């Protein structure tokens, strides 16, 4: 009587889909690289590639945080403004410390610590409002987006906050120098990506994010502290925004009300292009890295040629984004 389920032959369809889903973003990346090579011989030059990767590192690091937030079914629209206000306060703190600490790494490190700390605090704020206040993440972070943006405008008095030049000179190598010829931003981006991948796949926290995003009730019944995990995703996001700003400040040496505008959209786009689902439950860090690099390359490729009117850059970008995701189609529809 006790007959077990029959042997269902291999499921080719599913395997195929999974492949496309995995290969999709990589394929889009490969096509873009081919396009770049065909347009300009310097495309593959070491300089160009490190330039593109280093530039993508800010958004990349932020997008890795966003992958956790989105996987857990959340959303953070405030990251761009948060970056601006963190950059602003960091610069103010460093300028303010010069009289006491003098020019040197001391000031820079104090500034860096401030940046990370502020990111964490901003994350705690967002996360607490969302989890304890039970307000939709969209609304909370839309609100803090405005608040942070205003704050930096206010601090800069409508203008620009600039880092003291001598300190900027000390700090500059953090963006422009590197290790064994690889610029620091790329190294930090790579480390954050590897760390993110490990946390997402090999820690309980990563697994809980997916579980919560997939089915909050199930997660709760599995005695996961849903609110805490979710709060943690926002804190992680904040801290990573802080890390991104650490690399951003030595590049621009200033912050203003326009710093980081639309970064949130770019970060979320990178995450989604990478194959993470916006509704939560499934996240892929390496996909996000690929997605962000795709976005970075689009900008680079537009600069490699003079065929497309700069007015149409946005259209090209839009088409590539849609195509990149079309390559992974067959996925469940949103």
């Amino acid at each position, binding site marked *: 009587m006790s007959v077990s*389920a029959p042997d269902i032959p291999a499921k080719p369809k599913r395997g195929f889909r999974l492949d496309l889903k995995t290969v999709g973003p990589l394929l889009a990346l490969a096509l873009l690289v081919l396009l770049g090579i065909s347009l300009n011989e310097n495309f593959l030059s070491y300089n160009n590639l490190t330039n593109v990767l280093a530039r993508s590192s800010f958004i990349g690091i932020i997008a890795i945080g966003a992958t956790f937030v989105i996987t857990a079914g959340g959303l953070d629209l405030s990251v761009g403004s948060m970056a601006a206000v963190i950059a602003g306060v960091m610069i103010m703190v460093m300028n303010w410390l010069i009289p006491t600490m003098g020019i040197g790494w001391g000031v820079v490190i104090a500034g860096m610590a401030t940046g990370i700390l502020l990111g964490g605090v901003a994350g705690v704020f967002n996360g607490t409002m969302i989890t304890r206040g039970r307000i939709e993440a969209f609304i909370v972070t839309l609100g803090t987006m405005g608040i942070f943006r205003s704050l930096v405008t206010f601090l800069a008095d409508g203008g620009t906050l600039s880092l003291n030049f001598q300190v900027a000179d000390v700090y500059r190598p953090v963006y422009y120098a590197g290790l064994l010829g690889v610029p620091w931003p790329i190294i930090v981006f790579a480390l954050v990506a590897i760390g993110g991948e490990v946390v997402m796949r090999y*820690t309980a926290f990563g697994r809980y994010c997916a579980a919560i995003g997939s*089915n909050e*009730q199930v997660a709760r019944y599995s*005695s996961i502290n849903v609110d805490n995990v979710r709060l943690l995703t926002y804190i992680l996001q904040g801290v990573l925004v802080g890390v991104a700003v650490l690399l951003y400040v030595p590049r621009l040496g200033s912050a203003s009300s326009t710093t980081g505008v639309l970064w949130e959209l770019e970060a979320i786009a990178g995450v989604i292009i990478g194959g993470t689902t916006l509704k939560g439950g499934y996240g892929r860090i390496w996909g996000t890295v690929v997605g962000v690099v795709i976005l970075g390359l689009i900008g680079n490729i537009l600069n490699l040629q003079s065929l497309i009117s700069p007015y149409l850059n946005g259209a090209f970008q839009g088409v590539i984004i849609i195509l990149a995701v079309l390559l992974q189609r067959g996925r469940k529809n949103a």
Partner: protein
Amino acid sequence: MNSADGTPAPAILSANRISKSFGEIPVLFSIDFDIKPGEVHAIIGENGAGKSTLIKILSGIEQPTSGTITYDGQTVTLPPDGKAEGMGIVLIHQELNLAEHLTASESIFLGREIKRFGFLDIGEMRKRAAALMDTLHVRVDPDDRISTLSVADKQMVEIAKAISRDARVLIMDEPTAVLSVGETQTLFEQIRRLTARGVAVIFISHKLDEIMELADRVTVLRDGQLIATVGTEALTPDSIAQMMVGRELSNLYPPKHEPDVDAPVVLGVRNLSAKGVRDISFDLKRGEILGFAGLIGSGRTAVAEAIVGLSHRTGGDIALDGKPVNFTQVAQSVDAGLAYMTKDRKGKGLLLNMGLRPNLTLLTLDKHIKAGFLDGSSEDRALERAVRRFDIRARDASVAVGRLSGGNQQKLMLGKTMESEPDIIIMDEPTRGIDVGTKQQIYHIIAALAAEGKSIILISSEMQEVIGLSHRVVVMREGRLTGVLEGAEITEAEIMRYAAGIKSGNDERISA
């Protein structure tokens, strides 16, 4: 596996004068209940009697309005959100409770992952998950995503998850509702193994033969009241049913009326192939109840879904009243008088966050449109009809359907399907989670429909149901049709022979 060797063991978990109200609605009235180590204590009762509510209280998911819980001799307040698991009280929810995006192995260990040096030990978890699947004889790969599993496999994963936890009290809310006989037997083996080790098991089921087979004691609830707690040996299926329903249950199955041999074929299926099934041919005559039997995953649902246009047909022909049809949208099949009622009420059948009314009329909204607008009073009338006909018990029509008891959800879904007044109805597990009293009503409804000249395909894993109602029975195995049984051949043993692949053939019957 008796509770003890004569000495009355102390209860490990007991409920003392537990009452529960949702808002002002009382659901449980002063219930006393206890469970001893090594014992299987069954809870039975009509749909909405309060069984699920009681066990939710016993596992901390819900807090009682009054009364106390004693665990291990101490009065306790159980922690919410499944945290009682840490104390050894493990619950399998009535409704599937898995996150669709996760894999089987991730689901089994969710909330108590195995770690090494702070990181997940994925290999170890996968290995243990595979071993668990093996003991349960389930063909689920630990890396399969839950969303790709059949309902039965999902339930087996839930069971695997529950037995993998170090339970002292294991509570199962209708675990067998979606299981076939084979899987049920496997589950029972595991339960016996656990009780032998002293685990206490609380078991809810509407299948009375299972209760008789497994339980040591039975508690009967009715309308939130405790009717009795008795030893199983003092019971017969009939007496249990009577206690549950409060009246004599004479004939569960209505008498089969003789099918008209000359009745026209209303649905002809030839060489149908689709995802999961190959080369299926059968005929359905007017006024006939055609049973579909087979093991879980044998492809019965796949056949139904391919016929009504829910899944893509890769080959074969379908004729309705002799005319070839090709449904690509469910709407087309509904318009043609062919309706399908899914077995997955939570995932495919009902909008859990909406009220009864929009759920009932969703399939047939066109009928409630007057001058282009929805006619609310017409919908209300439909709901009144359905509530009466299918005995749907909701305290308030505006309550979200997700809050109804499982059986009442099933009845609502039945009502929804019948709203389209189909000539041909494919019912997939129509009595899943329904109490015997209502089951009897539904059986009579099905028989009456057939008598009226409607035709019914009855997909069911409850062998007795198929045997008791069907004029003919189609048996499937591994995506193929292995036999068609008629008349006196329709016996449990014969069906099993075809279903298990020991026997096959008699194709000549297909178009009998």
